[in-house]
């Protein structure tokens, strides 16, 4: 089978009892059938469809970036571009906040980095207790298709490293596709944006890392 085969819903990816249906697939007698549009992947006997598009589905432990859109009596409502909003309870910030002082700590329109504590599809609980989480005070936000996030991060963060080496920016990639970038110069941030756009546009070509390295050279 072609390693990078794009499949559509209802399409038989592979047939045989030895195969196991994974994410985005189902079994129908002998056939493993795609249940979403994406790249078919068969590793060992596990068959799955890697999404090319679609809304971000949060998983416990994910780091995401979002915006405060509402404040309740005991926490903050966070929009992160998903199918539900997140909730950051007052108990999950690293500081004691008295009720009635929530807005002074995090205000409408503030951007935060948070960890996903738990989710049941209807709600999403967030935390900013760990180091490196919490409110972002300056910088640029770039929004990308969340399905491209693994490519922007790269294997063990290799792609992020290429970006940092080329531009000297601080960067946090949220699993939800929101990326925060801060450089000491505007041109460094613009360069970072161009590189990220390049990665997203070329996310499915072979040898992407080398192509990005080339692109970075040309930018200089």
């Amino acid at each position, binding site marked *: 089978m072609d390693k990078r085969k794009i499949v*559509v*819903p*209802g399409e038989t990816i592979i047939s045989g009892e030895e195969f196991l249906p994974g994410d985005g697939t189902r079994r129908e007698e002998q056939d493993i059938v795609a249940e979403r549009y994406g790249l078919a992947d068969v590793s060992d006997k596990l068959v799955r469809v890697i*999404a090319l*598009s*679609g*809304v971000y589905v949060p998983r416990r432990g994910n780091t995401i970036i979002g915006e405060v859109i509402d404040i309740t009596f005991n926490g903050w409502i966070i929009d992160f571009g998903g199918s539900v909003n997140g909730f950051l309870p007052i108990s999950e910030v690293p500081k004691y906040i008295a009720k009635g002082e929530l807005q002074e700590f995090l205000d409408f329109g503030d951007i935060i980095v948070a960890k996903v504590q738990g989710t049941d599809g*209807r709600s999403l609980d967030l935390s900013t207790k760990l180091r490196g989480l919490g409110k972002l005070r300056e910088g640029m936000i770039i929004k990308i298709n969340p*399905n491209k996030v693994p490519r922007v991060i790269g294997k063990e963060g290799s792609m992020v490293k290429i970006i940092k080496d080329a531009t000297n920016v601080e960067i946090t990639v949220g699993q939800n596709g929101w990326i925060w970038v801060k450089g000491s110069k505007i041109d460094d941030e613009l360069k970072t944006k161009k590189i990220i756009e390049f990665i997203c546009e070329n996310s499915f070509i072979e040898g992407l890392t080398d192509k990005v390295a080339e692109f970075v050279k040309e930018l200089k």
Partner: protein
Amino acid sequence: MVIKMVEKSKYTKRMDGRKFDEIRPIEAKIGVIPSADGSAMFKTGDTVAIAAVFGPRVLHPQHMQNPEKGILRVNYGMMPFSVSDRIRPGPSRRSQEISKVTEWALAPIVELEAFPNTVVDVFIQIPQADAGTRVAGINAAVMALAHAGVPMKEMASAISIGKLDKTLVVDINKDEEDFREGEGSTDIPICILSRSKKISLLQLDGKISVKEMKKVFKMAKEACTKIHKVQVKALKEVGR
């Protein structure tokens, strides 16, 4: 013995020269609306449909939410300049009915159990019409749903079969829709699911015998197989 006279149909040759089972030239394209989560254009002959999908996203107002699964909402409309006699913009009885039957045509293929309290919005617009706009809209919408990454059991394709006097034809255009001789024109839009071959849209406007109706389904299945191939090709070209 009584010999039944079989009258010859008054529609012996198609006005645009097509064979009776021939669909008009098709074009399909993905990603025509960058702001949408998924989008597609589907064109047969001079009928053009564009579709955009947004979601799953939080559904307002809250009382419409379903805590068990996400809901699908379809909105179909024709642009005022899509037909000779300008249509007033905004929803009409016709467009609201088509929105609803399209919603029902698409509902069996989408799987929104993982997205409770949300909505998937499908917007269909017709910039240029030459009959068959609802089926073109469905074909575009199915592609846009897949493109948006919405979980789906299978795809779907739709076609309009026509009966002109006594002749059955595939994919009728406006001139054929207006055919008035003999038994006149009967329009039968049908949507067929790609894998299970189930029928998710079925309407009829006119007169037809039961025997002929059997042939209609056979013709529709053949046409939908052809349309499905074009939809799949457009989806597979993206990402290359």
